[in-house]
């Protein structure tokens, strides 16, 4: 019995030490990346941050710093990708939005929403939360109305009903606007072909950093489009990267 307890303690100690070492190394790598960035060694900083990300660690700070490192290395596509990922996590982060706006300016893209509330509301996650909130309020007030007869409940039902309709429309609009997952072109000047293969003619060319919508994938070729410009075509999957970071299991 005592031997079993000893063995259990030993196992627990090894496990906890392992967890501690893992956690420390991730933080250390992040700090090393920061130090390299501060000293102008942007390539090394980028490698350190990427290593942290490979260990399935994320967060606004890591994504934002990766965006900065790529920006300093002159890779606008990757810089935008990581800023977009950071903005997905923290749509209200002012630094992220500033740097993302700067990259968009360099790509000659218009930034439409500047107020943090608008950015959050018009993001897919924001619209979903907003819908859920209004959904709860609307049905709650209906529920109260089943038992309580008051004038304010009568008015509240109308107001919440209108808000519910607006939230549903907003969610529909944001969903339709995206129509698929978003991706960023990470290589300079990518040719978008009319079909999934090199035998097909190049239909249009997109610069590095351009945001595209992904619709479909066949044999390593991805169907992408730019709904604003009415363009659609196929590109090799390695030339673009989805904004939503892949979840490693």
């Amino acid at each position, binding site marked *: 019995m005592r031997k079993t307890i000893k063995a259990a303690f030993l196992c627990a100690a090894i496990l906890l030490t392992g967890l501690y070492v893992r956690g420390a190394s*991730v*933080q250390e790598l*992040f700090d090393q990346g*920061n130090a390299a*960035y*501060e000293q*102008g060694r942007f390539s090394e900083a980028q490698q350190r941050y990427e290593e*942290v*990300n490979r260990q*399935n*660690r*994320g*967060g*606004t*700070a*890591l994504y*934002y*710093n990766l965006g*900065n*490192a790529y*920006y300093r290395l*002159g890779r606008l596509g990757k810089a935008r990708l990581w800023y977009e990922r950071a903005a*997905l996590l923290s749509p209200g982060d002012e*630094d992220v939005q*500033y*740097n993302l706006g*700067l990259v968009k*300016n*360099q790509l*000659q893209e218009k930034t439409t929403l500047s107020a943090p509330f608008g950015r959050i509301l018009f993001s*897919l*996650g924001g619209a*979903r*939360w907003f*819908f*859920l909130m209004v*959904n*709860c309020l*609307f*049905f*709650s007030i*209906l*529920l109260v109305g*089943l038992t309580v007869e008051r004038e304010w409940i009568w008015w509240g039902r109308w107001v919440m009903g209108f808000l519910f309709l607006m939230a549903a429309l907003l969610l529909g609009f944001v969903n339709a606007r995206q129509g698929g997952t978003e991706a960023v072109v990470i290589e*300079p*000047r990518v040719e978008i072909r009319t079909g999934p293969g090199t035998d097909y003619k*190049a239909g*249009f*060319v997109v*610069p590095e950093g351009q945001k595209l919508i992904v619709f479909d994938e066949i044999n390593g070729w991805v169907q992408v489009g730019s709904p604003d410009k009415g363009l659609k075509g196929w590109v090799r999957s390695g030339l673009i990267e989805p904004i939503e*970071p892949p*979840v*490693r299991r």
Partner: protein
Amino acid sequence: MKKTVAVIVAGFLFSGVALSSAQDGVTFEAKVDKTSLSMDETLVLQLIIAGANLNISQPTLPPLPGFRAFSSGQSQNYSIINGVMSGQVVYHYSLAPQAPGDYTIPSFTLKAGDQVLTTEPISVHVGSSAGTVRPSPSQSPRSTVPRETRPGRKELYVTTSLNKKTAYVGEPLTLTFRFYSRAQLMSQPSYAPALTEGFLSEDLPPQRQFTEIVDGKEYTVVELKTALFPTAPGKYTISPASLECRVQDFSRSGDPFQSFFDGFFSGGQVITLRSDPIPVEVLPLPAENRPSGFQGDVGQYRISAAVDKTNVQLHEPFTLTVTVSGEGNIKAVSAPALPPLDGFKAYETLSSLNVSKDGYRVQGSKEFRTVLKPDVSGNVRIPAVPFHYFDPRAGQYRTVSSVPIVVTVKPTPIAEDTVTLPSAPALSEGVRVVGQDIRFIKTRGDLRPVRTPFTQTALFKALNFVPPLVFLLTGIWGIYRRKISADLPGHFFRKAYRNAERRRKQARRFLQKKEWAGYYEELDGALIDYLGCKLRVPSQGLTWPVVDDSLKERRFDPETIRDLQKLWEELNRVRFTPSVVSLADAERHDKELADLIRRLEKNWKN
């Protein structure tokens, strides 16, 4: 030339006479040798000035629509009658038609002193090509004979060719003119290049001379090349190029001596050779995928950027040179738009050109030099300069960019011996943005495991359905409740059996614990409540006579009524004296109650 000198000398000798006779009597006339001709022929136009005073400058030809004019020299004739000199000067022109049709040679105007003399307009019809060689008119001082220009049949002919018949706006084309000759030329030929309306042209030297065998005959070929750049879309025709040359005319006489003297004294035979017109279709540049910064440059280009210094002091100017090189109309290449140069003040851009025509292709480089003055210190980045152009070979737009440049700007050192005198505080100019850059990294941050955002999980989606579902269920429950309230006795009637079973179940729990009081209270309650609900009367205060009457009234089985009465009384009895009850009796009472309720239920259903 000799004739011109003769005119001048004659004019000088007889100037006194001419002056004395004033300007009166001067006539001015235009004549053509024919009013109808074919494309293969040349029209001879004579402008005749006759009178006493011929000290008049040569008339200037106005534009002649449908014709290309060549001067064929002039002749003069003087006579002195009674001390008064008169004469005439004739200016000869060869007019080569450009296209078939009806044309009008307009009036010519000549100013002679105070007089303005004009000629009558002449209508001329130009027919299509006759394809024949015609003899020269005898009255002409020089015979001008149009020749057919088909290769392989004549001793002299010219051709023009274009490397492409369809091109985009701005795409370089090469026009090649060739002069094939087997005859002895008496003078330098006069070349009139093809009219290239709608194109910018650029000569492509050097002129090439070589021999070529055509239909078994050896020709000396002189080749001239011209680069053409279409300026606007549409259908164009490159008009014929023509060449006027003078050759010996051996056809006038069979006598070789006569021909020899003719060769010296007649001036030979003037031949105008003309190439065929070439149709060209110029396509507009595609609107699709046109980059926003595209400035109309067409060709194949590269771009590079360089600075003369990479280490400078703050506010020390240096030069950024952006070079666009490649093949195309390099002269017309527009300055690439510089990206926002944060941290620098940019001055005017100057350009210089280096054009090469090696290999008969217009190529070279154009440099755009911009003086920059850094406003901030540190490592300041000059971003990549993009250049958009249309590549006609690939038929698509391309963008090339220079490599970004980092310039190290050192802060201006403050001289140690500088003494700063206190002065009145300067007026603040407010916040001024002198440079734009990304914000610094975040040194602190939560490095959490990457998970699917909650808004994309199934749980979140399910959460959206909870409020309406709760509302729906509550609504259904409300309806049910209202329905029960409307018929409460009916509800209890329907629930009576279930309630009785539930109380029996509760009673069995007391039985297990041998709590007789509780047990019989539940059994008794089950029976009374059941009967109360079924008879739609309150169970409190329910007496056997009421039950008995009601059951009889409803024509229940008398045996069941008897058994019910027996159980009713027994339960009443043992309820208040539970200590005398054995376990077997208790179990029997439960069974009897269950059996009785089942029988009653059956009767009620029937």
